[in-house]
């Protein structure tokens, strides 16, 4: 247990010390590369500003994520359930996913204006695809014999979806949602670069433009820490949802004797 905390911490400390040393040794100006000590100082000094902007970004990410998951599950179910829907809908989804969002970003600004609505659109644009793909795969991976069995019991198509296909798809769906959870804040920030005057993305644009590099680093640090926390939260939820899944079981065979 100690080992799983000590070594990563030590490694991080060494990295930070190197960074600090390099900045001081070569006298790198703060607007090019701030030292970790400067970044920490900035975080402390601008704590409430950073947090309020983070809250805005995360609000957009959260709302967009909810919409994305809801739409993604529905679209995934529709595609998995009908070949016609699959053939007609999937090409559009692939195109929408392949278009570099940053390129069409200015269009969003013109269409939707500055603010939360544009950001949420971005978040959805970034996150819908993994949700849909994983939902479709999950729903299609139901054991054919189990489907036969419940049909023999007299199950309606709705019952088959609810009792067999959907629970069976949960592991895959959870994977898709975990991907979306990590992409949502990124989508929100990029949305803010272009179409919002609040949030961490907006802060970053201004900080970089104003050459306030330590604030930019501070924002990125805060964002990253939060991103890691989000991932952990998603894993926690997954553990609650999939207690029965092999991925959640202890695998004694792979345990190192020294841990």
């Amino acid at each position, binding site marked *: 247990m100690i080992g799983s905390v000590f070594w990563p911490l030590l490694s991080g400390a060494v990295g930070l010390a190197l960074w600090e040393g390099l900045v001081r040794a070569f006298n790198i100006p703060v607007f090019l590369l701030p030292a970790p000590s400067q970044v920490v100082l900035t975080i402390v000094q601008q704590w409430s500003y950073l947090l309020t902007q983070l809250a805005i970004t995360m609000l957009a990410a959260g709302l967009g994520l909810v919409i994305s998951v809801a739409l993604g599950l529905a679209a995934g179910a529709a595609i998995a359930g009908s070949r016609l829907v699959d053939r007609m809908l999937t090409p559009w989804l692939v195109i929408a996913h392949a278009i570099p969002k940053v390129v069409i970003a200015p269009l969003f600004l013109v269409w939707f204006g500055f603010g939360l609505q544009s950001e949420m659109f971005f978040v959805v644009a970034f996150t819908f695809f993994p949700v849909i793909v994983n939902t479709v795969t999950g729903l299609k991976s139901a*054991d054919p*014999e*189990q489907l*036969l*069995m*419940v*049909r*023999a*019991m*007299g*199950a309606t198509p709705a*019952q088959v979806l609810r*009792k*067999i296909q959907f*629970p*069976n798809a*949960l592991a895959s769906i959870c994977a898709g949602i975990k991907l979306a959870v990590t992409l949502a804040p990124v989508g929100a920030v990029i949305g803010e670069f272009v179409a919002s005057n609040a949030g961490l993305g907006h802060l970053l644009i201004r900080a970089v433009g104003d050459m306030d590099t330590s604030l930019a680093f501070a924002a990125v640090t805060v964002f990253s820490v939060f991103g890691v926390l989000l991932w952990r939260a998603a894993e926690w939820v997954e553990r609650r949802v*999939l*207690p*029965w*899944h*092999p991925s959640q*079981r202890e695998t004694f065979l792979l345990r190192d004797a020294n841990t």
Partner: protein
Amino acid sequence: MLAADRIWRRNDDRVTTGESIVLEGVEKTYGGPGGVHAIAPISAELLAGEAVSIVGPSGCGKSTLLRLIAGLDLPTRGTIRIGAKPVTGPVPDIGIVFQRDLLLEWRKVLGNVLLPAEIKGLPDLEPRAEELLRELDVDGFAQSYPWQLSGGMRQRVAIARALLTRPALLFLDEPFSALDALTRDQMNVLLQRLQITQHVTTLLITHSITEAIFCADRVLVMSGRPGAILDDIRVPFERPRRLAVRETAEFTAIGRRIREHFEKAGVLVG
């Protein structure tokens, strides 16, 4: 023991339990005329409450036949009647046990057993579920997940699930083939004990000659492609049976009779 004797005598008094199954000229061909002729015209009658086993080599069509009777597939020709009703679609009152237990990994054992009740909308079957688990010696695992059970235990849960709604018919399609030999013997004993306590017409598909005889009152020998009934053998042993009965002369004689059919058909060379 006493209860079992009483029920068996009731069968002798012709109080019918379960339903009868009648097959008339049932034939199945896949892929249109000129395609795979899976089952040659078969006619048979299974009495209500009988325990019947069908034994045959792989590919002879016995599983296909089971699916036709269960209404999961339709015959190309001929009719099947359960009770007096013709089979035109999935028959509602059947419990089926497959070779794979097909337990839902995300539900606990009790939840798995209750699945048919949920689907058919039948309430208040939890006491029966628990009683069945007790009968099958897995009641301590009602709150466990399937992955925590051994293969044999999982199959017992599958049997409990099949019997939950008190179906008139119990079909078992090679239910013990995936289990090791000792567990399989245990399951044979269990099954024929169940046949006493649960009043169902039982149809057991197997490729084990010993199992076919031990678990049934009547053995239908099936072979060939297209599948056909080669023999219909009465099994005289009293219930409840013990494994030792398999070593009696009468038992081995029946086994020999069945084996000879397979040798003649070129399925066994021995």
